[in-house]
């Protein structure tokens, strides 16, 4: 596998604690074919680099204005900081000079080898509390060359690799990835074509056939369901999910139910984008518990 394949990386999260067992590093790639209404990481949707600006963290120090080559940051006459996104070329220069940790550049182009090297810094920790690397996004399966390149290097180094995917990519991509991935975390967001299209823009045909493909090729798969009250939350929906998975012959797979949270909201603001669904409420544990009950406790570990 080529280790010079490049991909836009949103961030590399070390000591990540919920993207699989043990101590892990999660690599978030940019670019995603879906547009989930509840997206937790909207900065990863597009492949292009983008500057995230958290207005509330800004201290008004004006240093960004001093370094920006395009005048995207500016200080008003009364000493307030302003930011004109249309002028921003996402070069990232302002980020390091920010005294408020208010700026973040999502989308540095990195080679698989560079990412590998960064992940390997924590190799000692992956061994201590058995974990590894989770490749997430965005949609990492959208970049089979990069992802397979990174995964194969990790595999050679004896590091466990989880791929976090929503499955909405051409089947060939999974054929490339299959040999290098220890486990697939496979998102099932809806179990009906219309719903999936409406909520995420995704194609259920692809999602279903890729899941079956992985299953048939003996891949280890875990189903992940982001539970959004009002959409796919509740006991009734859990029953439908269960039936859907059974129809695909995937009834025996473990299912993680992940409560929706509103962490993505601030990011929309930081991206200067309109939140498509500001009315969504966080998912209470009771909804998760009810769904676990329906799907079966044996298949929905705590």
């Amino acid at each position: 596998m080529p280790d010079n394949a490049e991909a836009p990386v949103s961030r590399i999260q070390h000591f990540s604690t919920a993207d699989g067992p043990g101590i892990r590093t999660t690599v978030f790639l940019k670019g995603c074919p879906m547009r989930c209404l509840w997206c937790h990481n909207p900065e990863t949707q597009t492949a292009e680099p983008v500057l995230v600006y958290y207005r509330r963290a800004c201290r008004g120090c004006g240093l960004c204005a001093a370094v920006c080559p395009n005048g995207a940051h500016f200080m008003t006459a009364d000493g307030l900081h302003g930011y004109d996104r249309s002028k921003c070329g996402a070069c990232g220069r302002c980020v390091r000079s920010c005294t408020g940790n208010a700026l973040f550049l999502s989308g540095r182009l990195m080679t698989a080898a560079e990412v590998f090297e960064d992940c390997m810094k924590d190799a000692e920790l992956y061994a201590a509390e058995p974990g590894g690397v989770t490749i997430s996004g965005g949609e990492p399966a959208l970049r089979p060359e990069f992802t397979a390149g990174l995964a194969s290097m990790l595999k050679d180094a004896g590091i466990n690799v989880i791929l976090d995917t929503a499955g909405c990519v051409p089947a060939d991509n999974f054929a490339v990835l299959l040999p290098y991935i220890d486990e697939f975390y496979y998102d099932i967001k809806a179990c009906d074509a219309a719903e999936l299209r409406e909520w995420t823009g995704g194609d259920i045909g692809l999602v279903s056939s890729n899941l079956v493909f992985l299953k048939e090729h003996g891949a280890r798969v875990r189903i992940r369901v982001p539970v959004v009250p009002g959409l796919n939350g509740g006991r009734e929906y859990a029953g439908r999910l269960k039936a859907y998975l059974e129809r695909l012959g995937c009834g025996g797979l473990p299912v993680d139910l992940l409560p929706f949270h509103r962490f993505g909201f601030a990011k929309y603001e930081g991206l200067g984008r309109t939140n498509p669904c500001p009315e969504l409420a966080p998912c209470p544990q009771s909804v998760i518990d009810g769904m676990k009950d329906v799907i079966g406790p044996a298949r929905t570990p705590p």
Partner: protein
Amino acid sequence: MMERSRILEKLRPEVSAPGQSGRVMTGYYRYLGYREHYDEPNRIARAYAVRSLLLNTYKHIYDHDMILGSVRGFFTAGDDINVSDSDVESGNRLAASFGDRTFGTNSDHAAPDFAAFLRDGIPGTIERINLSRENAQKRGDATGVETLDAMNIAMCAFRDFVLLYAGEAESRAEKLARNDPEASAELSAAAETARKLSLTAPETFREALQLVWFVYIAFCMEGRYAMAFGRLDKFLDPYYQRDRAAGIIDYDGARELVIAALYKIRERRVLFGADDVSNIAIGGLNADGTGGVSETSYIILDAVATMQIPGPNLSLRYYEGIPDDFMDAALRSVGTGLGYPAMMNDAVNIPALLRHGYAKEDVYDYCMVGCIENFIQGKQPPWSDGRYNTPKYLELALNNGVDMLTGASRGPATGDPAEFGSMDDLMDALGKQMRFGAAEYVACFNNLNDGINHARYDQPFLSCFFDDCIGRGRDINEGGTVYPSVHGAAVMGIGTMADSLAAIEKVIFIDRQYDLKTLVLALKADFEGYDGLRAALVAAPKYGNGDPLPDKYARWFVSFQNELFSAYRTRDGGAFYIGIASNTSNIPAGKEIAATPDGRKAGQPLSDAASPSHGSDRNGPVAALRSLSEPDYSLVSCGSVINQKYSPAMFASPAGRAKMRELIKFYFRKGGQEIQINSVSRAVLEDALEHPEAYNDLVVRVSGFSAYYNTLDDAVKFDILARTEHA
């Protein structure tokens, strides 16, 4: 672990009651001792003052006391109500005229030799004093005779103090007999324990703990603060094991007793409005190579986690091979928001102390006093330390010895920085400024300490607990102890310094974007009109991200500070340690410092303790710990502090705690000295919502990713708050 405690429920309301306050009687009672002995040698008069204090102060008994001893005796109660205010006042004045040692002159922050005291008990100790006095007499050692006479007076007074408590407990038990027979029986048992302790050495866990507690309370009555218990698990465990084998105690029973004693540390908060910092060190290696975690270690840890009070400052001495489930229990305690125990690395602290030539078996019994200061238990005079504000010397090096804020000459003239052609020239000037600063610091401290005539400031009671004051017939501060006094210079601002030097090297000498002259002008102008330069300085690599440039300066910083202070000796020939801990002094210290080359504005806080500057460790906790373990901390004999914050969710499950445990082990394998982990409580999150400016470095770790709290919007903050309630 953290099961319901009956004694806690009963004692909590009693201890928390404001109760009697008003007049402090301790000075008056000392005076009553002094006035009978004005004509006698000073140390004898002092011993009588201690005697009068221990005998006369009020002995408070709680209805639910299992372990007797309270600091409520500081105040007026009962009989002494008849003493007039003017008598108390003039008594206080007279007692005060005798003077007192303070923290700066070796009065408190010490861990007594409890192992020896438990072995001998009160009568055995009195016997030892008398024996030694005979020897002193034989060799014609008049000072020895007098010093031992003083110790004898103090120790006999302590015995009477214990007996008076027994008497009070008996009469309270009698009063309670009718209405609360259970409490009455418990108090009778406590009284019996106390009576027995006046006659023999302790034989049971309860007796041993009671004796330790009486000593601690007596020290408090003397006005001492931050007196440490040291390796409490180590010297109590043999009693526990014996009792357990005999079937007279079990885990829960021992835990109740420990709570019954330690919960009363909270009295200080109730009565004086501030917490005591009574350090307890659990775990740790023994000199024979065995691990020190015993069942009593679990009991103490559990008791502290259950009590949820800031008083006992619990330190866990980590060593390779420490049981995983002990670390798990420790992390559960941390996760309650209590933050204890702080984790200390034996693999760093033991070599750090061995360097000073202490005997191996003494070093392995080290403990902490106060917050984190390493101490050889029972073998050193009390601790002292001070703050050494290092970034000031960089300011002076960049300004030819002149303070940028005041224009006053504060250091040697080390040349016009505009002439510095390289980083080496600057480091040379900085070295000279720091050397000068260290000399000034040491002179001030030693002058203060030498200003006290040791023969006139005896500590007869304290001396009974420190090896080998009794044998030598010398006071603790007059050569009685096995080892001399040490002093800790708390060097402040490692993050500010590493970042500043890295920024200078990068911006001025590598990129050559600006020159030193411009930098100095910018610093003096507090960066007004120098946004471009400041932006470049802020963008330079920062300590705490695993970046080699600032890490190199952090390494230099530690070894240079050690080299500076190693050259000095305390008045009795002890070492000057360095420490990298400053509590919250980084804030006032920052007020006195001009803008620094890391981009910090004048007056802003310095970096805290051994941590990176606020908010500058942007690559997560692992990278931060990697940087933080770069310097050679075995040169930091006093100790250091780093703080990391995690959300309570991290501690909620065994899997989460296992990850934290491995992170700590990783850090300690790399050579980290200390880590304090805070599980950010709901209260903190609420406060951070109100005062975002004070929480720029608050990282919340939820759902497997972390975010600066301030970057989240209110909806999310409320979500986190809602969850925190469950965690």
